[in-house]
């Protein structure tokens, strides 16, 4: 059996046509690199924002506020205008070499042999099964991603997949986005549940959220069972402290947050992964552990906002350009690891001589809430920096640490650990 029909040989193959991938493609073209091929498996490019109906996109990268679909349209247009070949319905399914991919598309099975590859495959929410929630397996159990797609496609309650009374699991920003989307579909949110004492997005959203949307947030609570033969009838909540169980009647359950990167290609390629995020480990130039393979966006930090993903893409583009121009990666490397209070940190490698990370920030994922976080940076047991940062650390939201805190890092002195005191 032949493995492919046509061979494409772009300078750069970008896998994933979301904010990160498209921004990388546009920036590469702006730097005069080409040809650039963007592979997007969905039937339209744009990534998650494409179906995310609410406002709140484009702030940091395009310096304006728009809805997800508007934003998606804009970044796709930009990439095309700058001359990238954005192919939709095109999924990279396997590696066929160090920087070669096999792709399925309506135009045939393709072999893509690129000089450099940018992985920008995004992240997804863990499903109910991945969270190992026992019980029946009725319909009406969704993730925000699916909910959003269903409503965006304007399937009127989507063949019964969306009902009238929903429980939203999680209280992050994305969870409130789910509440809004449910409301648009005519479905009321009867409760939100969070494992945490304080809802994750407390500061940013939940006060207005609660007053505006009147959704009770049940805290320190885990969903422990789903009930209903054909259709969801109720969910069982268990309080983390008391073990008390409560049943709440509903016909829809939306599992929000609990992100995992879409790391299939990264794993198939054998890239080093961060144990906390399961994302490919990158240095501040967004190089992965494989030469000529870069990564950007929520694949690296599940999840941050779309504009941050796009700025990653832009950052990666400059680094890809310099690799194509013959620059080699600095030999010395210091590993950065998440310490107390954090699940992961990205980038995870610092190389002397490399640029600062995108936006001059390290991104970390807090495991608990801290209103006044005091961050310490240690290398080989030695305290390099300690600073109280003026923004809270909340689970479910990326926490940003300025690059200046790690400026004293030296190769050969051991791993760097960033934690909360």
């Amino acid at each position, binding site marked *: 059996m032949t493995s492919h029909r046509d061979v494409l040989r772009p300078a750069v193959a970008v896998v994933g046509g979301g904010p990160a991938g498209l921004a990388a493609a546009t920036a590469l073209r702006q730097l005069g690199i080409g040809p650039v091929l963007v592979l997007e498996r969905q039937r339209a490019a744009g990534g998650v924002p494409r179906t995310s109906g609410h406002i709140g996109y484009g702030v940091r990268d395009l310096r304006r506020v728009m809805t997800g679909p508007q934003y998606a349209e804009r970044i796709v247009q930009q990439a095309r205008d700058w001359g990238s070949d954005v192919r939709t319905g095109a999924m990279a399914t396997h590696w066929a070499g160090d920087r070669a991919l096999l792709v399925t598309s309506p135009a045939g099975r393709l072999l893509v042999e690129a000089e450099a590859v940018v992985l920008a495959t995004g992240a997804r929410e863990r499903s109910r099964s991945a969270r190992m929630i026992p019980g029946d397996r009725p319909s009406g159990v969704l993730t925000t991603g699916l909910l959003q797609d269903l409503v965006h496609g304007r*399937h009127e309650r989507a063949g019964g997949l969306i009902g009238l009374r929903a429980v939203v699991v999680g209280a992050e920003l994305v969870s409130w986005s789910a509440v809004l989307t449910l409301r648009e579909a005519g479905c009321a949110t009867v409760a939100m549940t969070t494992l945490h004492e304080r809802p994750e997005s407390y500061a940013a959203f939940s006060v207005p959220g609660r007053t505006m949307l009147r959704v009770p947030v049940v805290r320190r609570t885990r969903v422990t069972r789903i009930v209903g033969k054909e259709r969801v009838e109720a969910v069982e909540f268990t309080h983390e402290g008391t073990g008390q169980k409560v049943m709440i009647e509903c016909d829809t359950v939306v599992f929000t947050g609990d992100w995992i990167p879409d790391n299939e290609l990264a794993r198939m390629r054998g890239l080093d992964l961060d144990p906390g995020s399961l994302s490919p480990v990158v240095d501040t130039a967004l190089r992965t552990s494989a030469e000529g393979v870069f990564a950007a966006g929520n694949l690296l930090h599940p999840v941050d906002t779309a504009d941050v993903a796009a700025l990653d893409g832009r950052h990666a583009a400059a680094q890809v350009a310099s690799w194509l121009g013959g620059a080699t990666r600095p030999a010395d490397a210091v590993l950065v690891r998440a310490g107390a209070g954090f699940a992961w940190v990205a980038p995870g490698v610092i190389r002397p001589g490399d640029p600062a990370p995108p936006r001059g920030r390290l991104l970390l994922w807090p495991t608990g809430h801290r209103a006044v976080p005091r961050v310490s940076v240690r290398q080989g047991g030695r305290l390099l920096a300690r600073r109280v940062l003026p923004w809270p650390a909340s689970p479910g939201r990326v926490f940003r640490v300025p690059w200046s805190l790690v400026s004293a890092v030296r190769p050969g002195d051991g791993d760097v650990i960033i934690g909360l005191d």
Partner: protein
Amino acid sequence: MIDVDVAVIGGGVVGCAVARELAGRQTDGRPVAVALVEARGDVGDVTSKANTAILHTGFDAAPGSLESTMVSRGYDLLSAYAGDTGIPVEATGALLVAWTEEELSTLPALRDKAARNGYADAVPVNSAYDHVPALGPGALGGLLIPGESIICPWTTTLAYATDALARGARLLLNHRVTSADVGADATVLSTTGGDVRTRWVVNAAGLGSDRVDAMFGHRRFTVVPRRGELLVFDKLARASVPRIVLPVPSAKGKGVLVSPTIFGNVMLGPTSEDLADRHDTSTSAEGYAFLLAKGGVIMPGLMAEEVTASYAGLRAATEHADYVVDVDPAQRYVVLGGIRSTGLTASMALAERACDLIEGSGHRLDLRPDVPAPPRMPNLGEAFPRPYERVDLIEHDPDYGTIVCFCERVTRGEIRDALRSPIPPVDLDGLRRRTRAVMGRCQGFACGAEVDALLRGEGA
């Protein structure tokens, strides 16, 4: 009223196999008129969809039992039929692992038992790790069973049913049999979809087989649903599980295994727990905890992988150790009951047996010379080329180049084909069993809306 020669009650893997076999027979040169009478809206929607999907050699059956005979005969028949129809089968083989000295000491006896079951190929191995390097510490030795294979249970049931239809059988979905009125020449089955008049009845009602048996006045067994919960791990774990890893069987059953699946995942299970409710296929926190503990011993590395799915199936266990297979010639009635944990493998042998029992009662069932060729089923198996990677198919129909479900690489063309197939899906679960759509790691996060639209005929 529908009037047939044989009504088969139950469209599980066993009933579908029986209907197919009967529809391939004739009496006095006239094809046997067969009705497959199923309570639910689809075939294979109960126990036949939720098992561990192993094509058993029967090496560990009770020698001399009907189950032993049926499993080893069924293994041969289904292996051949899979080749004819494209039902995916992978001969991965199994490694039975001894974790204690006591278990180690039973291996020679197990090998003898396998031989008494007609299976002579079992090979003792000193180092289990040579065969499954990812095993947890403490494996003392093992027995290789090269013949144990993995198979697609959904395609098997559908292939039988599709074949039965092609041979002229009628499929009566949403027909739950509620009573049987046995007359001198014919029996009238009352069903939720109307009456069915038939000369012979074959009871293949699975978990309901004792109740159907009671409709004929018998009280020979009671089904006790024995729940088996399973966890399915991410495809990225598949490489570390080259073959089925079996425990040493005990009096309590086959025990917890780790197995590759035909779809390229890894499965851990099943549990074994007697229930009262014949419909309770829910999973439980206790079941998960038990499996994770077992899995942590068998293959600790697997526990770090993501769980893609979990489910539970109910075995139709009874008070008898063996299958309950019998004929009541006076009532022209055959029972295939208590087919608990090997029915997928034994299905074609049970179908033959049902025909033999009817023939033995004086009703001739000759092989038809004119049966249509068996259907070619869509390949759902990961070990064989799938449409998304077939240059030839995509070239000729771009729908096979349009992946809709990304995790499982299911194309628009395959979904379209399933919707146009002789037994189309009636819901998302049915579509999943025909195409694998939405059963992957994202569980619809990226494709659920599109698949739902296609299912409802709204796909662009």
